């Protein structure tokens, strides 16, 4: 999910360097880049600590420096340099914050983690994000129980956990223990241009029959009804498909998938969802999208050549520079697939995303946590939303503030869904390899074979292969 903030053009720039390291040199490169095999188990270094008090609930050393690393992607880094760090220093003027940003988290951070010298707070994101499940398993992420139990920085009488939207702590928990702050709050659905729809008298569908009928009308108008970028954004399609499966059979379907339960992917709900979507792929997609990138298909949507794009609420900000005036981003929940879907048509998948964590073996993990507490204050959250047009997990932090049309629409969708907002699935961050397989399978389903049974069996096989692979750390949720 965090892949979304990637800037593909920046990846390319550094590629040559990497290209040189592969080929014949690939073998040594693995150990070189992972760095210093064996040095990682040499115990932890001296860590900064202070005295716990009401004012200092995490017991940080007020004079110890804090090193943070921020991923520079779709959210930018301004929120860290212009909001969070000044706020942190307002409370802790003597603690020096050492800041750096990178477009490649794993390349920069993984060797340091291995060498036992990680930064204190890390934003693990982007297409080069580190496998967080593996980090937790390796004991490299600090347990955040004390952070969530600490009082909020600026919301009186509440702990940090109390101030967050439901599911936020759970999303960063591994086997029930919190290790990550998933900071930004993303709403997923079908994105469209409200202005175009108004002009043509089209209304977003709530049933699948309405959906296909509308797609026919859109097609007749010379517009591609639905599309996603196969070259680097097929996981949007995976999310669309599994959200439909979740609506058919409740979130339990997705929990089974996360828990690698046998038969989770061949479940009727997944089959029905895959069949319904395959029909959309067969009739309403432009086949060239398989070879296009997210930004290229996005551009076509901005030119009103594509009607629906399945995506998350970061989309508006990501496209902000290129959105023509008169284009009004709006979101529609995925329509019900069957008449007997267990969740209503308004149900929506919204989840915390974008991992921030404190390194367990850093010089100042408590300082890293205190920095996270600063980020989770109401003031920081509000500024973050203003800067990035993205909601945060801090509940209600941006209430009453005028925000962009897309974000307003996302907010409305969440309100309408009421109790039927569900978190979705976690297997994509738990098991990167399974995530990879799901992307290829979704591309096949939507662009090539339209075979729902084949999709389900393929994913079932991949999921069971992960279940049997002892080298992969397993997680469960309930």
């Amino acid at each position, binding site marked *: 999910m965090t892949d979304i903030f990637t800037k593909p053009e920046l990846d390319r720039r550094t*590629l040559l360097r990497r290209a040189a390291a592969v*080929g014949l040199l690939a073998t040594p490169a693995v150990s070189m880049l992972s760095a210093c095999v064996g040095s990682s188990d040499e115990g932890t270094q001296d860590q900064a600590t202070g005295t716990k008090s009401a004012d200092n609930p995490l017991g940080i050393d007020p004079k110890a420096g804090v090193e943070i690393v921020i991923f520079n992607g779709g959210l930018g880094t301004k929120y860290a340099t212009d909001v969070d760090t000044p706020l942190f220093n307002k409370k802790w003027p003597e603690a020096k914050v050492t800041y750096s940003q990178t477009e490649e988290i794993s390349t920069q951070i993984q060797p340091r983690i291995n060498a036992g010298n990680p930064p204190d707070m890390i934003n693990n994101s982007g297409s080069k994000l*580190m496998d967080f499940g*593996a980090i937790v398993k390796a004991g*490299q992420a600090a347990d955040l129980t004390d952070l969530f139990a600490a009082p909020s920085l600026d919301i009186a009488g509440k702990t940090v956990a109390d101030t967050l939207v439901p599911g936020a702590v759970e999303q960063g928990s591994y086997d029930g223990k919190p290790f990550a702050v998933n900071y930004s709050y993303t709403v997923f659905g079908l994105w469209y241009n409200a202005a175009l729809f108004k002009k043509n008298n089209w209304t977003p569908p709530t049933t699948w029959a309405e959906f296909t009928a509308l797609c026919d009308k859109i097609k007749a108008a010379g517009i591609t009804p639905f599309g996603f970028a196969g070259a680097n954004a097929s996981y949007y399609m995976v999310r669309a498909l599994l959200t439909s499966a979740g609506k058919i059979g409740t979130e339990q379907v997705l929990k089974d998938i996360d828990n690698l339960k046998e038969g989770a992917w061949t479940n009727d709900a997944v089959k029905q969802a895959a069949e319904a979507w395959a029909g959309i792929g067969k009739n309403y997609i432009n086949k060239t999208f398989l*070879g296009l990138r997210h930004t290229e298909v996005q551009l076509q949507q901005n030119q009103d050549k594509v009607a629906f794009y399945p995506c998350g609420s970061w989309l508006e900000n990501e496209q902000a520079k290129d959105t023509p005036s008169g284009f009004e981003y709006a979101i529609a929940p995925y329509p019900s697939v069957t008449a007997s879907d267990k969740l209503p048509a308004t149900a929506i998948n919204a989840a915390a995303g974008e991992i921030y964590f404190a390194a367990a073996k850093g010089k100042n993990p408590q300082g890293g946590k205190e920095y996270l507490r600063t980020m989770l204050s109401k003031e920081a959250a509000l500024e973050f939303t203003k800067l990035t047009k993205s909601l945060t997990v801090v509940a209600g932090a941006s209430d009453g503030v005028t925000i962009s049309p897309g974000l307003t629409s996302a907010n409305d969708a969440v309100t309408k869904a009421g109790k039927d907002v569900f978190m979705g699935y976690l297997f994509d961050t738990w098991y990167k390899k399974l995530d990879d397989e799901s992307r290829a399978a979704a591309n096949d389903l939507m662009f090539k074979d339209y075979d729902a049974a084949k999709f389900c069996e393929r994913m079932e096989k991949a999921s069971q292969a992960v279940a049997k692979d002892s080298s992969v750390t397993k997680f469960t949720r309930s």
Partner: protein
Amino acid sequence: MRHGKYPFIIGFLVVPVAIYVTFVVWAYIQAFYLSVYEWSGLGPVENFVGLGNFRKMFDDTTFWQSIKHNVFLLIFLPIITVVLALVFAFLLNVGGGHKGGVTRGVWGSKVYRVIFFFPQLLALAIVAVIFGRVFGPDKSGMLNGLFPESWQPWLFLADERYAMGCILVVLVWQAVGFYVVLFSAGMGNIPTEVYEAAAIDGASRVTLFFRITIPLLWNTVQVAWVYLGIAAFDAFALVNIMTVDRGGPDGATSVLSLMIYRNAFEFSQAGYASALGVVLFFLTLTFAWVTLSATRRESVEA
């Protein structure tokens, strides 16, 4: 002067050897060591699995797909590149025939030489981005833009039947220039009298090419073959940048080097990646050895 010899030699050798030992030899030893462990790359190395990682490869469809693609490149990249480079180099150097006592290349050969070499100057990453545009799957793609409006666009990289071929085309395009220059240098060492004598005897250009140029250039061709074979084991940058979902669609362009990278840095399977690296190491060595011994023949003295 003699007494300064050893400090001179040592001065030149110590640093490079030290760098080589640290960053190549030692790293290889580590990779061999890691390949028998189940290691995520994020913590201490602990789970010894012996040959477990190698056994895992047998069941890994991506592994076999990747091997298949590397073999495809291994067959076609050297053949096409060497043949093209030889023909071009011949045309540039002797193709113009024998006039006024001088053997020369075709008209404008100096300009061609620059043009051929140009792709070599571009960073591979840039080449990949440019060719991503050339092979664009819709009308905004350069090749599709050249086709008549009424044609269905070709999907190129998005079609698993053609994707690997597209990669091959780019690799050849990039490599040919270098080998043109290499073969040109080789041809420059062939005494012109040989050509002149043959020309006087009435040999055609084709005869000159097969009877004189190729035999006298054999060692250079052999080296080129090995280099290109090693390049065929790589192809990482192109595949990583150009293809659908990196190595797609559906694994249709996956290669070993990409697999190593993704396992090590994306799937947190550094142990498995090391094992793949070890396999790649032996494949490359075997290839070089087989090529060198299979192509050995009496060198022809000019």
